[in-house]
C-alpha cells in the first residue's frame, strides 16, 4: 500500500467509527440548534483525531500534511452525512485568509484553534443586495473614525452568519476611484454593537443564509487585513484558496443508482420504467456525464500526488453536475407521479428527490452561477474576451446606479 492508501484506509476506518455518534441516524429528527451542537462535537472529534486543518501549518493547530491528504479525507467523510456543513465556509475561506493575512499572530492562533475545534465559526461577508457576481460593485462603506473605522451598509446571502462569532468583510473605503480600487478587507466581530443578523428562509424551507446589517459598527484599524484600497486582491485570494476540494459528480444530489432503483420499482405503461427508452436514455446520459467528471477528478488527484497542478477542467464539476442533478430530480418526481407529492422539508438532498429538486437552484447560483462559470471558462481557459463592461475604469461614485 502507498502512504496515501494507508492514510485513506485509516480515514475510512475513523469515519466509519464516527457513524453511530454523528451519522445520518444520529441526526434524524434534530432541530438546527441541536444539530449544530452535535456538529461542534463532531468537529472537536475530528480535531482530536488529527483530521482538522489537515493541510494547515502545525504551529496553528493543523496537521502540516498536503492538499491531497485533505481531499482524500474529505472523500471518505462525504460518504456519511456528518453534521459538518456549519464549518464548511468557516474553515474553507475566512479562517485560511485570516491565517494568511491576519497581522496579530497571537490573535490569529487563538482564533484558528477555536475554529478548528468547532468552538467558533466564521462567515464571509461578500455579496450585497445590489450584486453578488459583480463583487467589486459592493456598496457597504467604511469611513475613518478616529484611529479606526465605522462600517455602514448591508450584506446578504451570508451563510451561517446567525451562528458566526466572526466574519471577514470587504467594504468600500474610497468611492472616488474605480470600483475595484476603492475596497478594503477587514475582519469583524459578529457580536459587536450595530451588527444585526436576519435569517432568510429559502424556497426549500431552510434558513442557512442571512441578511447582515451594519449600523455604525466601529472597528479598530488592527482589524484591517489588506492595505487600504487593496481589498479586492485579498477577496480574490479568498475565492482562489480552495480550487480543488473534494467534489461530487452527483452535484450533492442523490446517486444515480437511486434513480436506477426507482426506475426498476416503478411501472410506466404497465412495464418497469427501466425498460422505457426515455428513462434508459436519461440514465445513460447522466451516467456518462458523471463518469466523465469522476475521471476528471481522479486525474486531478493523481496529478496532485505527482506534484503537478491539475488542469482547469476541474472547473466543470459544479456547472455540469448541479444542473443535471436538477433535471434528473424532476424526472424522478415524474416517475413517481402523484406518489411524489408527500414532501419532507427536513429530508436530505442526497437521498430525497423532492428535496434535491427544490434545493437545486441554490446550487446553480451560490458560489458562482452557471453563467459566471461559463464566463470564467470562456475567458480564463479559452482566452475569449471579457463581456462589455460600461463601468470599467469609471470612478465608483460616477457609475449610474
Amino acid at each position, binding site marked *: 500500500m502507498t502512504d496515501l492508501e494507508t492514510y485513506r484506509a485509516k480515514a475510512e476506518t475513523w469515519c466509519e467509527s464516527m457513524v453511530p455518534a454523528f451519522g445520518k441516524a444520529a441526526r434524524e429528527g434534530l432541530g438546527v440548534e441541536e444539530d449544530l451542537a452535535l456538529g461542534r462535537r463532531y468537529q472537536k472529534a475530528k480535531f482530536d483525531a488529527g483530521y482538522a486543518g489537515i493541510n494547515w501549518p502545525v504551529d496553528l493547530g493543523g496537521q502540516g500534511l498536503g492538499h491531497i491528504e485533505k481531499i482524500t479525507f474529505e472523500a471518505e467523510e462525504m460518504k456519511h452525512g456528518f453534521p459538518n456543513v456549519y464549518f464548511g465556509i468557516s474553515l474553507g475561506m475566512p479562517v485560511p485568509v485570516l491565517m494568511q493575512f491576519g497581522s496579530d499572530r497571537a490573535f490569529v492562533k487563538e482564533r484558528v484553534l477555536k475554529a478548528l475545534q468547532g468552538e467558533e465559526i466564521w462567515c464571509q461577508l461578500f455579496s450585497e443586495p445590489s450584486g453578488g457576481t459583480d463583487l467589486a460593485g459592493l456598496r457597504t462603506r467604511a469611513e475613518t473614525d478616529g484611529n479606526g473605522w465605522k462600517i455602514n451598509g448591508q450584506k446578504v446571502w451570508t451563510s451561517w452568519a446567525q451562528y458566526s462569532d466572526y466574519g471577514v468583510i470587504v467594504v468600500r473605503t474610497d468611492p472616488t476611484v474605480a470600483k475595484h480600487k476603492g475596497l478594503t478587507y477587514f475582519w469583524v466581530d459578529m457580536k459587536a454593537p450595530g451588527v444585526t443578523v436576519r435569517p432568510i428562509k429559502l424556497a426549500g424551507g431552510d434558513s442557512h443564509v442571512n441578511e447582515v446589517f451594519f449600523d455604525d459598527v466601529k472597528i479598530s484599524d488592527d482589524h484591517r487585513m489588506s492595505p487600504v484600497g487593496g481589498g479586492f486582491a485579498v477577496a480574490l485570494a479568498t475565492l482562489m484558496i480552495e480550487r480543488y476540494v473534494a467534489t461530487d459528480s452527483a452535484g450533492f444530489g442523490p446517486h*444515480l*443508482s437511486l434513480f*436506477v432503483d426507482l*426506475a*426498476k420499482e416503478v411501472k410506466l405503461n404497465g412495464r418497469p420504467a*427501466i425498460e422505457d427508452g426515455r428513462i*434508459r*436514455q436519461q*440514465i*445513460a*446520459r447522466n*451516467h*456518462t*456525464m458523471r*463518469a*466523465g*467528471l469522476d*475521471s*476528471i477528478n*481522479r*486525474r486531478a488527484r*493523481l*496529478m496532485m500526488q*505527482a506534484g*503537478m497542478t491539475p488542469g482547469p*477542467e476541474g472547473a*466543470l464539476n459544479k*456547472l*455540469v453536475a448541479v444542473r443535471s442533478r436538477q433535471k434528473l430530480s424532476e424526472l424522478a418526481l415524474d416517475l413517481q407521479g402523484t406518489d411524489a407529492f408527500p414532501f419532507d422539508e427536513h429530508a436530505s438532498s442526497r437521498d430525497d428527490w423532492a428535496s434535491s429538486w427544490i434545493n437545486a437552484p441554490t446550487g446553480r447560483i451560490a458560489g458562482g452561477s452557471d*453563467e459566471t462559470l*461559463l*464566463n470564467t*471558462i*470562456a*475567458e480564463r*481557459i*479559452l*482566452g*475569449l*474576451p*471579457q*463581456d*462589455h463592461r460600461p463601468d470599467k475604469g469609471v470612478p465608483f461614485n460616477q457609475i449610474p446606479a
Partner: protein
Amino acid sequence: MSILYDEGQQAIATESRRALEARVSKDDLLPLLQDSGKYHDGFWTTAKEQGWTALALPEAHGGLDLGLVELGLIAHQAGRSLSGAPFLTSSFGAAKAIELYGSDEQKARWLPGLASGETIGAIAFATGPDPLPATPSVALDGGRVDGTAAGVSGGLFADVAIVFAREDSAPALAIVDLGGAKRKAIGSFDNSRCIADLIFAGVPAETLVSGEAARAAALHILALQAVVTAHEQTGGAEALMEIARDYALTRKAFGQPIGAFQSIKHRIAELYGLVELARANAIHAAAREGQDDFITAAAAARLSATEAYDTAARDCVQIHGGIGVTWEIGLHLHMRRARTLALEQGSSFFWEDVLVDRLAGEGA
C-alpha cells in the same frame, strides 16, 4: 483507474500530431468527398511508416505490444486532422478479433500483414440500425458464407473481414478472405471511409467463435473499436472547439469580437465541457481494457464522444455564420465525419442500451 500519460505516451501524441499536420490538409480531403473509391494515401502511408498499424498488436506477430491508451492517442490526433481513411480502426478491430479468438495458424496468417498495414481489415457486424443483429444477414454454412454485409467501412479495400454471421439459428464470428467477395461501392456523405457492400456467394470462411459466445466476442471487438473511435471523435471535437474559439476572437460585429457576446462565448465554453468530459471518459475506458467494467467504460466513452463531436460540428458551423456553410472552408468535413463516426461501431441508441443493461444489472 484513471491515468496520467507518461513521457513515452506524450511523445506519441506530439509526434503523431506533427506527422499528421504535415501530411494531411483540408485541400487534400475536399476532393475525396466527390470521388467515391479513394482514400488519402498520405494518411495511410504515414500510419504504416510510423508503426501505428502495429501499435496495439502483439510483438510475436509483428506488433509493438502497446495498447488502447497509445492507439487512442494516435486516434485523437487522427480526429483532429481528419483521418483520410478508416483503416486504422477497422484493421485494429479485425486484428484484435483474430488475436483474441483465432488459432495460431490464423494469427500467423493474418496478423503480420495487419500489423505492417500491408493487409487491410474490416468489421462486418451490422445490419442497418442493428450493430449486432439477432439474425445476421450473412449465413455461414460448411465453411462458406452467403449473403450481403451492407455498409462496411473500409470494405472497398479490405483484404479480410471479420463477419458476424448466422450459423443455423446461432450467431458466429467468421474470418473471410475478401479475395472471393464482390464489393459494391457506396457513394456516401463521407467518401474517404471507402464504404462498400460486401457480397458473398459461397466465399470460403473460417469460424472464429460459434454460438452465443460469438455475440459477446463481437460486442467486445465493437467496444475496443468504440474506444479508439471515441478518441478520434474527441480529437475532432477539440479541433472544432479551437476553430470556433479562434474565429470568435478574430471576427468582429457591432464593434467587438463576436467572442465577447455571451451567446457565442458560452456556446464555446459548453463545447469545452463536452470535450473534456469526452476526453476523460475516453482515457478512462482505454485504461480499463481487460477489466470487468471495460464494456461499461467503453459505452460511456462512446456516448460522450459522439455527443461532443456532433455538438461541436453543429455549433462551430453556427458560430461561423454564412462562411461556415461554404464548401471551401471545409467545416462540413467535420460535420460529415462526426456523423460517420457516430454510425460506425453502433449508434448511441445501441450503446445507451449496453450501458443501462449493465447499470441495472441486466448485462450479459
